[in-house]
């Protein structure tokens, strides 16, 4: 098992310099995610407009390269998507990293697929999904989500 399949350059780079990092003023959907086992913490900010489109997404937090890169890539990907599309991406991502059969959903993960390598590391899957569970929670109304 070559760990470079997991720690690809894009992931290391996004982990080191996450995009959309910081508080989002004017956010109308906010949720906190926490992985008590690792100590990973993040707060996700979304601005969803009246048409249900995610206009902006930012996050704050601390954690390993996988969780930071996943949040970074996710915030890039969901911008401009509808809330429904973002939820479909969450489901696709979940299938991807849990190594379950990928259901046919009308949305593409694109660049995010680079995190697929995490499925070979069961103890690290939660690092990759924390941001997505937090997104799901934010779209459902906010609050705290824990991936323990």
């Amino acid at each position, binding site marked *: *098992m*070559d*760990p*470079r399949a*997991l*720690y690809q350059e894009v992931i*290391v780079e996004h*982990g*080191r310099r996450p995009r959309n990092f910081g508080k989002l003023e004017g956010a109308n959907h906010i949720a906190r995610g926490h992985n008590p*086992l*690792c*100590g*990973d*913490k993040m707060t996700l900010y979304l601005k969803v407009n009246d048409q249900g489109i995610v206009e902006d997404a930012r996050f704050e937090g*601390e*954690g*390993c*390269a*996988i969780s930071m890169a996943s949040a970074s890539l996710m915030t890039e990907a969901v911008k401009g998507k509808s809330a429904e599309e973002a939820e479909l991406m969450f489901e696709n991502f979940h299938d991807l990293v849990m190594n379950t059969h990928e259901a046919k959903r009308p949305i593409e993960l694109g660049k995010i697929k680079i995190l697929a390598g995490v499925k070979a*590391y069961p*103890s*690290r899957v939660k*690092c990759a999904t924390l941001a997505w569970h937090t997104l799901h929670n934010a779209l459902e109304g906010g609050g705290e989500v824990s991936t323990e």
Partner: protein
Amino acid sequence: MIDLERIRADFPGLAQEVHGKPLVFLDNAASAQKPRAVIDAVAHHYAHDYANVHRGVHQLAERATDAYEGAREKVRAFLNAPARHEIVFVRGTTEAINLVAASWGRHSLRAGDEVVITEMEHHANIVPWQLMAEQIGFQIKVAPILDDGSLDMEALAALLSERTRLVAVTHMSNVLGTVNPIREIVDMAHAHGALCLVDGAQSVSHLPVDVQDLGCDFYAFSGHKLFGPTGIGVLWAREELLEAMPPYQGGGEMIREVSFERSTWAELPYKFEAGTPHIVGAIGLGAAIDYVNGIGLAAIEAYEAELLAYATEVLNSVPGVRIIGTAPHKGSVLSFVMDCAHPHDIGTLLDAEGVAVRAGHHCAMPLMERLGLPATARASFAFYNTREEADALVAALHKVREIFA
């Protein structure tokens, strides 16, 4: 002297490859590998001598009882406890401390009393006191650590008063490696009329323990960190304390007489051993103690001090590594962080090189808060580890740097 080749051959779990690399097992503070002597003792007992203890009139019950009580005597001698009936078998350190909190604590502590713990405690020596404090209303005071990971003895002294009823302290920190001056702490506690409980989960596998010499009132440890089975551990307490303490759990084995009106309790230690105990676990622990005695804890302590010094030196040679916990008196635990990589990423990458370490908060979240760290990576050594394995750790950390630095 430590005969490494012979010792390593005694541990079948060590001789394997993971991810195509020789296993370098440096997660001993979490749980230690088992020598063949322990594995065989457990298998032999199940295969030949197994029955329930203390209540059979038949041959196997007698053999099982003899082996179980023989293990208790081995534990007594291992701790140099005055009496065999002061040795209570429990599931582990966690249950031992919960037993003291629920039995002695509920019976003896009142609102206004104080229990003093330290900033370096494992959750197992924090939460049982919190649970009891919620019910009784006593206060928990926390003695701070110094920046090198030593206990701040002056601050501890300042916390003690006539309100202090118990000082509950770890013998050796599972994160920092710090070995606390227990004799001194016990004397300070006793001078204020308080008792002292020692969490020995980490210490018993690294240094000789003599509870009479330490002078403490309660000592708790787990079998699985001492190369024995999981699910078995020990609470030692002074006889007069155990006599005065009410039972912790009710059931079979712990009674003298039962009627629907009232029951009376069995003598020590059975008052605290309700239900069928972990018979074979205790026997396995006895075998582990025999094995450790065969090497000798004084020899183990000396060898590990040398190994720790070497590992500290080579770890410090890796750019961007910072060792957490540099107290003058340390056991063989090396917690560290790297400037380029998070502990969980370090853990995964080391595993790919065959090196097993722990990454996380190590069940010591308040200590992590004090250190200002969300997590550390931790390499913890046993007497079967070698300098070459410390070198393998360092080589693997260079691979981490190749990816992240």
